[in-house]
């Protein structure tokens, strides 16, 4: 038996919006730790890993670890029917073949049940090693979203370079080029409006903007975003969701090709 009740029901809706364009279906893992998902896009360029800890729910019960296969677009269709302020409860039997989403309105006057058929799927997983990243940048998530959107209208890829003064996003395309630099700042009234840079050594990596823009759909989940980078490693774009968990995206960088022979 799995049962989880979440007062801030809109959260699930936002989570689904953030991942449904990246992956089509995935196995949601329910354990005593919490409710999580790891999934990759079909080209294996990006990976999403999310976790909602059990202590963040108002009520959480999981008798046995289960892994529920769901089509994310279909799950999103159902969650879309919840109001942002609804209380959402997820329920599933250990051996069942459905999951139920129950939405209760704030004043308890409207109660709806949506039952989604589970799928038996084989999802592709990666073991992500623990890494000490040489550069991390914490910045306002809306700022990151805007940068990705603006740059995508100029070019396909972005070079992210972190130095101790700031973080620079550069792109170029047929029509020209663009650079946006965000400096380290600590003076804003609200702490989440600051940009903090923690860096052992400068790092510069190139990424496809298409994916970063897709990650930025998680912006409503958190006022800040953290980018963690090391030389020749995938970037981690993490959104912490207050009191309950996080959603992290991993994106493989662009690499130089050694097999192209230029001497011919």
């Amino acid at each position, binding site marked *: 038996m799995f049962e989880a009740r979440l007062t801030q029901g809109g959260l699930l809706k936002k989570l689904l919006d953030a991942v449904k364009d990246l992956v089509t279906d995935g*196995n949601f893992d329910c354990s005593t730790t919490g409710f999580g998902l790891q999934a*990759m896009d*079909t*080209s*294996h*360029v*990006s*990976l999403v890993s999310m976790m909602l800890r059990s202590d963040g729910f108002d009520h959480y019960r999981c008798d046995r*670890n*289960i*892994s*529920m*296969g769901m089509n994310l677009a279909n799950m999103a269709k159902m969650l879309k029917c919840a109001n942002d302020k609804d209380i959402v409860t997820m329920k*599933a*039997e*250990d*051996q*069942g*073949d*459905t*999951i139920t989403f129950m939405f209760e309105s704030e004043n308890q006057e409207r109660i709806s049940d949506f039952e989604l*058929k*589970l*799928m*038996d*799927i*084989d*999802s*592709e*997983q*990666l*073991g*992500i*090693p623990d890494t000490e990243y040489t550069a991390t940048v914490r910045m306002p998530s809306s700022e990151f979203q805007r940068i990705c959107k603006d740059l995508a209208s100029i070019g396909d*890829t972005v070079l992210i370079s972190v130095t101790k003064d700031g973080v620079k996003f550069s792109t170029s395309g047929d029509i020209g080029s663009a650079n946006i630099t965000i400096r380290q700042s600590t003076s804003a009234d609200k702490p989440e409006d600051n940009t903090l840079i923690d860096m052992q050594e400068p790092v510069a990596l*190139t990424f*496809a903007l298409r994916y970063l823009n897709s990650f930025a759909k998680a912006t409503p989940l958190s006022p800040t975003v953290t980018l963690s980078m090391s030389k020749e*490693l*995938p970037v981690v774009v993490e959104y912490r969701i207050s009191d309950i968990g996080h959603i992290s995206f*991993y994106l*493989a*960088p*662009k*690499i*130089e*090709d050694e*097999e*192209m*022979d*230029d001497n*011919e």
Partner: protein
Amino acid sequence: MGIKNLTKLLGDHAPGCCREQAFDNYFGRRIAVDASMHIYQFLVVVGRTGEQGLTSEAGDDTSHLQGMFYRTAKMLEAGIKPVYVFDGKPPAMKKQELAKRTERRDEATEALEEAKETGGEADVAKYSKRTVRVTQQHNEECRRLLRLMGVPVVEAPSEAEAQCAQMCKEGMVYGTASEDMDSLTFATPKLIRNLMKPVTQNVPINEYDYDKVLEGLKLTPDQFVDLCILCGCDYLGTIKGIGGMRALTLIQKHGSLEKVLANLDSGKYDVPDPFPYEEARRMFKEPEVLRGDALPALKWGAADEDGLVKFLVEDKNFSEERIRKVVEKINASRSKATQGRLESFFGPVTMKSSTAGSKRKEPPKPAKGKGAAVKKGEVGGVSKGGGKKK
């Protein structure tokens, strides 16, 4: 061609072995392409109206060049690194099959003449397709084209599919692009079908995983080879009355071809005589291929624009503007950095299955649809055309 009914058999009994993939997902991958098979397909399909394929002003066939040039360009633009493998000398065991093909071609030539006289247009198109033959010149021209495009070419000592499989096993390439299911019998770890189909047809790419084929059919590699021989391959005749399904049951029950044959009701089934299955087995398991150091290093060079224009435009009457445009795109894509994949940083992908909802297994896909549907369509077409259905 290939192994009879294997596609359907896999669709029914090992549905997990085949995944649909998007063309663009192959960026950065090296892929061994069975050249001879695709040249044939291009000659049959590309630009064909009625009896005519594409030709230059001088009357030479150009369908193969058109197909090869644009499909290869498409791959290069997507960041795919193709290596073309050409057939060498056909193995002695295939002679019978090849003789049959020549015979069929001769029959088709006759039927074509007849159709031309009676004037069934659909028939003319149909039979003319069957008279298509890949000549030495076609192959030579394709080699020249590929070299000009900067794409590596490998000459197989014998069967191209076997060579592709070997390269894939050695990790030189990610997979084998072929339409022939033989590639799986040669144990290529990954077989990619429909990669070379024109974009306009919009057919999804199917990627077969060899290990999952075995897992799904519950067979060992040796048993799988036996199954393919029993289903009917290019090297041997078939046993009448044994189709894919029965072959699978028999191999699963008896464990090997020897035992299947020993237990076969000789009154009911007619085993062709001779039936040198041991030799066929050896052909699949120890084919004549280049291995290890004997294989050339693979390099992808820049496309030679002037060389291509000279060959395709001056000799073969292609449009200069188009050729130059494509070459420009190919060479532009070379300068771009390639997108990395997460597994090259985080180690291999593992599979995880759902635990809930597992009772509701997906029903086996209805026989892959394609083969059956196309055949039905053809039959319909013939009778409608008022043709020579004997």
